[in-house]
């Protein structure tokens, strides 16, 4: 069944993304953005009958904390893709007629760095559950966080396609420019140059520090409803034309047949077919960017460029909000920060909505009829 055009995002809200918000609690942030999105949509709290939350919190717990009694409750478990997937799930449930107004809310107030360091040390000292990883990876000394896997992916992409460090750096420069004009970005008013990126230290070669996200505190929310109900609401609706995925091979990246190809090769054609549009009709893109290489490989797999051509594309294309093909116009996660509580991927949904509604302010791109979002 196609859900083409049957649902729309009708309101959004976010709080600024910052390294730490020691005076704020997670549920306090979620309540603030929930209220903001409901008001922005021109609704009342009691209108909300569906709730989608991050995997870190049981959605029933969030419903209770927010004083909601939703008849449709989901905790998304697709990691970074949860933000984008929440919109697909909300649209599917709305098209099926089981719910009217879905609140999707993601975010976290991260613990202070001192207590984070303590919990990292505790996790290290207490042996993790035995797994494939503790047998076949841990004895060889993996890199901290996800840096290692994306370093491996980047190295292989450079080998297979000749992608250069300068081409990766250009993506960072464009996104940090976008973030420098976004008051909600962690790197607001802090653009970088090519040299800044290329001279930043290797977290692990060939990955530079500035090609990685900053884990942050923050929160974001949107309201999804039916196209019919959307007509009665104040904002211009951002219609959901097509969805694809989720699909993942993430856990076995190191013995995947092709480690520079992502599941987007499956999800993008599915979404485009449902939307009844050609990839060439897409005006701009908001793509999950925990690291440069992931967004770049996904843009290839979506068909924005041919496989292996993303390096030259970035080199030759202005991808800022002023550019010919804008990408991650709020700065993306690399520029605006990776909100905890799986909010990193959700910022792409919020910025897509903002641009399609024409509410981008100084960052409004010139043509934003069709935006592609990848989680």
């Amino acid at each position: 069944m196609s859900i083409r055009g049957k649902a729309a995002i009708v309101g959004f809200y976010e709080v600024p993304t910052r390294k730490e918000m020691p005076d704020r609690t997670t549920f306090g942030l979620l309540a603030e953005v929930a209220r903001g999105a409901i008001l922005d949509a021109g609704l009342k709290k009691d209108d909300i009958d569906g709730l989608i939350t991050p995997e870190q919190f049981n959605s029933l717990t969030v419903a209770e904390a927010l004083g909601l009694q939703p008849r449709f409750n989901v905790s998304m478990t697709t990691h970074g893709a949860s933000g984008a997937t929440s919109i697909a799930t909300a649209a599917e449930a709305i098209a099926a007629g089981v719910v009217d107004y879905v609140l999707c809310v993601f975010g976290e107030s991260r613990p202070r760095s001192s207590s984070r360091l303590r919990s990292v040390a505790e996790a290290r000292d207490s042996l993790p559950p035995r797994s494939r990883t503790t047998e076949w990876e841990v004895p060889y000394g993996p890199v901290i966080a996800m840096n290692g896997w994306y370093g491996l992916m980047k190295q292989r992409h450079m080998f297979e396609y000749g992608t250069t460090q300068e081409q990766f750096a250009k993506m960072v420069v464009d996104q940090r420019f976008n973030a420098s004009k976004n008051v909600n970005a962690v790197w607001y008013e802090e653009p970088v140059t090519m040299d800044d990126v290329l001279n930043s230290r290797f977290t692990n070669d060939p990955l530079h520090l500035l090609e990685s996200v900053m884990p942050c505190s923050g929160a974001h929310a949107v309201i999804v409803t039916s196209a019919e109900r959307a007509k009665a609401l104040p904002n211009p609706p951002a219609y959901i034309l097509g969805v694809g995925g989720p699909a993942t091979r993430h856990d076995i990246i190191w013995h995947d047949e092709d480690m520079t190809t992502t599941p987007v090769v499956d999800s993008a054609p599915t979404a485009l077919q449902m939307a009844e549009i050609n990839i060439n009709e897409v005006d701009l893109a908001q793509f999950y960017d925990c690291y440069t290489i992931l967004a770049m490989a996904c843009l290839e797999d979506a068909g924005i460029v041919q496989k292996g051509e993303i390096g030259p594309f970035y080199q030759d294309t202005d991808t800022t909000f002023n550019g010919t093909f804008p990408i991650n116009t709020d700065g993306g996660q690399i520029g605006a920060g990776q909100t905890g509580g799986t909010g990193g991927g959700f910022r792409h949904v919020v910025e897509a909505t903002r641009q399609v509604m024409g509410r981008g302010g100084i960052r409004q791109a010139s043509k934003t009829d069709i935006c592609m979002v990848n989680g």
Partner: protein
Amino acid sequence: MSEETTQYKKPLPRPPEPELTAPFWEAAKRHELILPHCTQCDKFFWYPREACPRCLQSDWSWVAASGKARLHTYTVVRQPANPAFAEDVPYAFAVIQLAEDVRMMSNIVECAIPEDLEVNMPLEVVFDDIDNDWTLVKFRPASEN
């Protein structure tokens, strides 16, 4: 050297299903590399698991591997997740493409890092006896194979 001075501080392999993979680790102690080979598919697979990931049949057996490999990709570690590895930085955390058409994680040793590393370079297996009970399978640069 006495046993105290050779105490291995880094994490040992911790198999979730020790009986399933015991033959691999026992072979490594003998400095032999063996891999799961599916009788039905006539192909190797990695990592070892109850059923062949291609056909889901469980009649597979351990078969000796050539020890020949290529460097599929690598990253140079400067910030290990576990500080016990700090004394080794920079070292190579790598995806190894074995001649038997399977890939496994390992380290590249006996060379200058990062200078000597190159994607697709030929490698050969070496065995690192890290303590009395465990031997890790690692790889070093080889002449063209």
